[in-house]
Structure formats: structure tokens, C-alpha cells
């Protein structure tokens, strides 16, 4: 796998040098409003990773809070460097058979401040690149939720780096890159506005793979203490909701009607899913819970992500409602039945929410919202639904299989899992020699 990819990359590099000039950017007009919103959006998406750190950090036990924060911030550093060195080129660089980019843009060569003709043609190419970098950062960070509290730091770093290279970059290329297999630039025409497949299904399936490969935490599920700091989780959810406006609305690539529409439906879907989860909580557990409402909100945000630029506000309510129900069932009913220990429900919320959102996009999408998009099932175009389903299945299979292989290979070199003793002591102390909280001053 690795070898053939490397060979392909080398061939691509050589051919890229030969024909590279033909793919140079056009000198389109830079629009200051579009650029300002995209850069703001990039900063908003960046904040989602620290937000996620607190969301996850609050949900783990006291002895593991730092390990989760550390993993999130390490990803911010590690993936950023990977993205600049070759990740962006693999994901968005000149196409190789619709599967992956070549290394023509490695080290950000040919990625200047002029606009690119295809990727957001009214903003500097570097602005698009750094916006996309934030997506590449948060996607592996979502997976942390599955292996939290038991994965060692070094194998975590190796996994993150290789996962972004071998899973995130190809899938981003299929869906978003020029001439990618599934995308709208000469591909199959799958609609994925801000990353239902690329980010959420992708991360969700890798999370499921990680939960299976690492096995359950000691004492899970019955004897795991409740979240050690729910207010942290609420703070994190707030930051995620805030950052999601950049995630979805700035994915419009412009600062106009499309961005406004995406902004509105993002907010509406989050609200609808939050209410849905609370109602389900009341029906089944007699009380609305804080963790329930924030989980519902995140599920709604996940589900609206692929649909954001294509659906109406009423469509967004339907999508949020469906996300609340689907994720609730998976988190509280299916997970206990299957018995895997997806510690913080990375698969249950991001995987299931992403699958629902990608399919729902094929149902509720309408050209009335975005003439550049497509109509879905409810607007007389069932073909779009089929395209969405194919994209979902391909992403699920690829992400799950490659993640399993990666984890297996890394486990052969250095054990993924902390020793029983270290797991008991907690990863903060055993992996980082620090503690989040002191008991004595």
C-alpha cells in the first residue's frame, strides 16, 4: 500500500515537473470581502480544535484530561507541518487518476498569493490552503474520542501523521479536488459542502476502527466514572458551535448569498438537533441532560456540514431532527449492544451524523438555494441520492480498512495501548509526567 502510493507519487512528481506549467493559476481578480471572510473562517475553524480539546477533555476522567488536550494541540502542530510539506499537494495538487494529488505543490511550491482558477477563484491560493489546513487538523482530532484514555502518545503521533497522509488526503482529493473521483470538478458530482464525507464519515470510521483495535478501557463500560468536568465539555461545545460558522459558511468560498445561507442553516440544524436530543432524554430518561443537549448540538452541526450550502432552513430542521434521533439511537442503544468502547462517541456522533448528513444532502438539496449545486430526491432528482450513497459507502470502506491496517502495522512496531498499570495511573502522569489538577496545594 505504502510502496505503491510512493511509486505513484514519484511518477506524479516527475510528470508534474514536465507538464506543470499547463496547470498554472489564472490571474483572476482577488475579492477583498471574500478573502476577509475566508481568513476569518480559517481562524474560526482553527479554534474548533482547542474547542474539541475541552469538549473531549471534560468528558474523560481527571487523570486523563491533559492527555486529550495534548493530543489535540499536537495534531495542530503535526498536521500543519505535514500539510505544508506535502499534505496539501496530495489532497489538492494536480490530479493522478482522480485518486490523489501529485507532489507538484510539495512545500507549497506553486501555491502563491494569486488566486487558483478552480479552488475559490476570488481569494489568494494560500488563503484557501490554510483554510483547508484547519480541516486537515480537526479531522484526526475527532478520532481521539474513540481511543481516549488508553492510547500511548508516540503511536498516537505516528498514527495521526500517517492517517492524514494515507486516508485524509486521498478522500479530500476524491471529493473536493480538481478532477477528483467523486467531486463536482469533473467527478461524479457528489455534494459535500464542508466535509460530511471528508471530515466526519472519514474520522468516524477511523474512530470505529481505533475503538475495535485498541479494545475496551479497563472497567468499561460499567465501571468508568462519569465525565470529570462537564462545564469544560459545555465550553468546548460552545467553541465548536462558534467555529462551525467558519467551517460551513466560509466553505462557500465567497462572502455573499451562499455564505449567509450556509451560516443560517448551520445554526438552525444545531438548534433542532439539540432540542431533539433533549426531548428524547426526557422521554427515555425522564430528565433533559446537559451532556445530552450538547451532544445533540454537535450531532446537528455534523449532519448539516455536507448540506450547508444546498438546503433551505426548513430542510436544516429536518436534517437536525434526523441527526438527533440517529445519533441518540447509536450512542445509547447500539453501542452497548455491539460492545465496542468508543469512549467519547466519535463514531456515534461524527460517523453516524456524517452518514446521515451526506445522505440527507441527497434528499433535501435544491438548486433554489445554490444554482451551482444540484437538486435532491425531494426536488425530483433521485440520482443525486444514489451519488451521495456511493460516496458514503466508498469513504466508509476506505477509511475503515486503511485505518485498521495502519493501526495494526503501528502496533507491531510499538504497542498502541498503555500498560494496565499506566492506564490505571492515568495517561497524564504516565505519558506526560504532568497532572491536570493537584489534590494538595
Amino acid at each position, binding site marked *: 500500500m505504502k510502496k505503491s502510493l510512493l511509486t505513484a507519487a514519484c511518477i506524479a512528481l516527475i510528470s508534474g515537473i514536465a507538464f506543470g506549467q499547463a496547470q498554472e493559476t489564472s490571474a483572476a481578480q482577488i475579492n477583498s470581502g471574500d478573502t476577509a471572510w475566508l481568513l476569518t473562517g480559517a481562524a474560526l475553524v482553527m479554534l474548533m480544535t482547542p474547542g474539541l480539546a475541552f469538549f473531549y477533555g471534560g468528558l474523560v476522567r481527571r*487523570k486523563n484530561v491533559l492527555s486529550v488536550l495534548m493530543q489535540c494541540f499536537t495534531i495542530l502542530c503535526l498536521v500543519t507541518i505535514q500539510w505544508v510539506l506535502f499534505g496539501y499537494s496530495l489532497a489538492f495538487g494536480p490530479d493522478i487518476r482522480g485518486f490523489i494529488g501529485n507532489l507538484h505543490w510539495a512545500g507549497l511550491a506553486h501555491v502563491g498569493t494569486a488566486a487558483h482558477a478552480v479552488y475559490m477563484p476570488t481569494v489568494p491560493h494560500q488563503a484557501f490552503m490554510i483554510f483547508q489546513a484547519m480541516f486537515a487538523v480537526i479531522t484526526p482530532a475527532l478520532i481521539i474520542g474513540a481511543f481516549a484514555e488508553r492510547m500511548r502518545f508516540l503511536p498516537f503521533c505516528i498514527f495521526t501523521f500517517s492517517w492524514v497522509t494515507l486516508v485524509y488526503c486521498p478522500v479530500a482529493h476524491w471529493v473536493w479536488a480538481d478532477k477528483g473521483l467523486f467531486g463536482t470538478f469533473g467527478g461524479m458530482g457528489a455534494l459535500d459542502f464542508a466535509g460530511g464525507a471528508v471530515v466526519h464519515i472519514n474520522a468516524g470510521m477511523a474512530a470505529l476502527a481505533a475503538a475495535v483495535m485498541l479494545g475496551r478501557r479497563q*472497567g468499561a463500560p460499567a465501571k468508568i466514572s462519569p465525565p470529570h468536568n462537564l462545564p469544560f465539555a459545555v465550553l468546548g461545545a460552545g467553541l465548536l458551535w462558534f467555529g462551525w460558522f467558519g467551517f460551513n459558511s466560509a466553505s462557500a468560498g465567497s462572502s455573499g448569498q451562499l455564505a449567509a445561507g450556509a451560516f443560517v442553516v448551520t445554526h438552525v440544524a444545531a438548534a433542532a438537533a439539540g432540542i431533539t436530543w433533549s426531548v428524547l432524554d426526557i422521554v427515555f430518561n425522564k430528565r433533559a441532560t446537559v451532556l445530552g443537549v450538547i451532544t445533540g448540538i454537535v450531532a446537528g452541526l455534523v449532519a448539516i456540514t455536507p448540506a450547508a450550502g444546498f438546503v433551505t432552513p426548513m430542510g436544516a430542521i429536518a436534517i437536525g431532527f434526523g441527526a438527533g434521533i440517529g445519533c441518540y439511537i447509536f450512542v445509547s442503544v447500539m453501542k452497548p449492544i455491539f460492545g465496542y468502547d468508543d469512549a467519547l462517541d466519535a463514531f456515534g456522533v461524527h460517523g453516524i451524523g456524517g452518514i446521515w448528513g451526506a445522505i440527507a444532502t441527497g434528499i433535501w438539496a435544491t438548486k433554489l438555494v445554490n444554482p451551482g449545486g444540484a437538486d435532491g430526491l425531494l426536488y425530483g432528482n433521485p440520482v443525486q441520492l444514489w451519488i451521495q450513497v456511493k460516496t458514503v459507502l466508498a469513504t466508509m470502506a476506505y477509511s475503515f480498512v486503511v485505518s485498521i491496517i495502519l493501526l495494526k502495522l503501528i502496533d507491531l512496531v510499538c504497542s498502541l495501548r498503555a500498560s494496565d498499570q499506566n492506564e490505571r*495511573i492515568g495517561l497524564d*502522569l504516565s505519558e506526560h*509526567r504532568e497532572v491536570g489538577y493537584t*489534590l*494538595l496545594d
Partner: protein
Amino acid sequence: MKYIVAVIQPDRLDEVLEKLTEKEIHLVTVSNVMGRGRQKGIAEVYRSHTEAGSLLKKIKREIAVNEEYVQPAIDAICSGGRTGQIGDGKIFVLDMKECIRIRTGETGGVAIG
């Protein structure tokens, strides 16, 4: 009447509690403590500065029992709390002079259960 103080590994709390319940000992007081046995603590490092000889988190559990429950309680704590590794903790058994139930004013053995 005896007063049993046990210092155990934090993650053994649930197991010990279960074993005690099996022996029908329901009344316990539990607190988070820090301590250091022969294993010493794990040194922490902050900005390359090592804080040596730090303490480890433990759970202190206190139980007041009548004589016939002393051995069952010790057995329960040992079987639930043992991992076989250094740091499993200790049990201290103290004589208890008096016990008073605040609600009723009862004293002695009846006030314990």
C-alpha cells in the same frame, strides 16, 4: 467495635465496594487522598524542571464495624483491592470507643449498622 481505615488504589474502588456489599457491609466513607509508600511517587516534569518525590493519588476508605464484621471487611478489601503490584495499599484496624447515631441518639453497636 472497630474502625477500619484502608488506603487503596483509586481504580480498585468499585471492586472493593462490590466485595463489601457481598458481605453486607454497606456503610463506608470514602475520600481522595495523596500518599506515598515504598514505591515513592512518580516524578513530574514542568518545563524541564523535575518535581521529584511527588505523591500518588489514593483512596482512603473508612468503615466502622462490629466485631463479627471485622474479618469479612478485611477479606473484602483485600480481595477487591489486590492487583499484586507495589502500591496496593494498607489496612489499619483501630479500636473504636463509641458510636452515636445523630438522628436517634442511639449509641454503641446498634448505632453502627
